[in-house]
């Protein structure tokens, strides 16, 4: 579905863009020479240039190798679907964590992932989720005194 050729080219374009963003950001701080030596932007500027040149070289090599790379597959529909679901769930976990805290998000995420992607019964998922959250609570908050991000639910129960 996605060929290696397209994936290589898209990645090279993306890395070149990161290089360009670095160069652009570095220009803001000066790339020349001032009283104290090289200005703060100088080093990132040349690094950004190097990334752009190397990305360009990768793109050229990719185009030169087009017949071979175009026939090689990077991802098929089936695999794309699998990682799509996995990635979607992870993104959901991150968003939920910011809103309602890491513990509750852990319960929700593990339950959903084990149930939907794993194909287990929902109560098995919930059991995994609750035990994972409890495990982290005991180890981190009690064992190492490292507090995690908490939300309104913990506050309602008086856990800080």
């Amino acid at each position, binding site marked *: 579905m996605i060929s290696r050729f397209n*994936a290589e080219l898209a990645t090279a374009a993306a*890395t070149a863009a990161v290089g360009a963003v670095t160069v652009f950001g570095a220009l803001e701080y000066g790339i020349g020479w001032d009283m104290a*030596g090289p200005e703060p932007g100088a080093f990132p500027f040349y690094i*950004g240039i190097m990334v752009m040149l190397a990305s360009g070289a990768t793109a050229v090599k990719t185009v030169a190798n087009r017949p071979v790379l175009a026939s090689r597959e990077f991802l098929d529909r089936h695999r794309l679907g699998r990682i799509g679901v996995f990635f979607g769930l992870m993104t959901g976990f991150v968003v939920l964590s910011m809103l309602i805290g890491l513990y509750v998000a852990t319960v929700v995420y593990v339950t959903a992932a084990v149930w939907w992607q794993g194909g287990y019964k929902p109560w098995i998922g919930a059991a995994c989720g609750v035990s*994972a959250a409890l495990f982290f609570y005991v180890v*981190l908050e009690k064992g190492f005194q490292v507090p995690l991000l908490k939300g309104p639910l913990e506050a309602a129960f008086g856990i800080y």
Partner: protein
Amino acid sequence: MENIPSLIYGFGVAVSGYHIGLMIIGVLLGILVGVLPGLGAPNGVSLLLPLTFSMDPVAAIILLTSMYWGALFGGSTTSILFNIPGEPSSVATTFDGYPLAHKGQPTQALSFAFLSAGFGALVGVIVITLLSGWVARFALKFSSPEFFAVYLLAFCSFVGLGGSSPFKSMVSIGFGFSFAAVGMDSVSGSLRLTYGFDELLGGISFLVAVIGLFGLGELIMTIEEGFELKGIRARISVRDVLKTVVAMPRYWVALLRSAAVGCWMGITPGGPTAASFMSYGLAKRFSKNRDKLGTGEPEGIISPETADHSAGTCAMLPMIALGVPGSATAAVMMGGLMIWGLNPGPMLFVERPDFVWGLIASMYLGNVVAVVLVLATVPLFASILRIPFAIIGPIIVVTCFIGAYTVGNKGFDLSLALAFGVIGYVFKKLDYPIAPLVLAMVIGDKAEDAFRQSMIMSGGNLSIFWSNGLVATLTGGALILAFWPLITAGISRVATVIRGASDREVA
């Protein structure tokens, strides 16, 4: 030979009930992350590091290095029993380890792996003991241009010897330096590359990057492959272990050759993965059993395992003596040293001899503890792998994100880890090397400082990198390494031309 008293002093620092307890915990956690898919040595250490912020540095480094040894052993376990490398550096172990286990000799396969790994690590520690003081004393002569040349040498060896496309290595290195530059500039104090995001003012933590790149990236890979484990049941019988111990000396050539390869690749930052492949390749070319390699030949297990562990151990030498880590995991640990307020490099030997020699002494002990523990617990950890990935996967995901949060207690780091996960997945699929990115992130500021100091010293003239014999040798070596593929191609072309010419003369 002033190293021996130092080492004895180090044992005095390292040997205590508390430290041995930490070693056991570290090794067990290490085997666990080595066995579990998606968790390896670099990000296992990254996950544990935030919990050591308040610990004494000696205790903390013992915990982290023990975890590293455990992870290396755990990675070999899955290679042999499941044909799935738990670590990139144990890929070569699958070539003969799994066939031997499949033939009904899992105990022998595992014992060969662990014993040769232990041997490799021991050689590595001896090399460190003998050389580290000397290297550090030598490096005390370094000033900024020399340090920058050493960093350059490290990165050039990735470009020239890394095995993947040199341009992709350069992109990876450039990414690392760019990420390292975000936030406060340590020389001028101004804020750079934040693009108006307040969250970026504090910079991007390399720990979050490692957790995303190695942990989440690896998990996405695993999900894509559709994870299914077909393991071989392992029950360790003491008699089989002893039989293997007796058989080991027969393979002394392979052991020594592989240890030498490992030490070389560990000190020059080639890393354990390259070392294990190179060692297997050498066995394939020079071993008298070379025809049997790939079918479950002990030499095919011994070669990569010895090299893997001696490289992993030797990677610590340039880290403590020069401040240039030899592998991704060593890079993470070096970042840890800086967080604990230590200054990796030659001055460490002067300022904190207790730390340096305690660490070196703990490596001897830690590896013995690791070999014993891993033999004792293999059946237990193999059974963990029988838990379906559909259940263990989401729990590993949560572990990674919680680890990323504990680095700086910032919600924003969760999104960063996710983004690094995508980068890690794409880079891995397209053969961009990830270790140089991590290395560049950890030593980015130091390399930039060294460069800027050099420029200030010379008034902006690049010729300072050629100004004396030492720095010129380092810079020259770096350039040779960077263009190594071109040089070897050139040599072989010249050789064919000469051979062609002489053939014609004969005809």
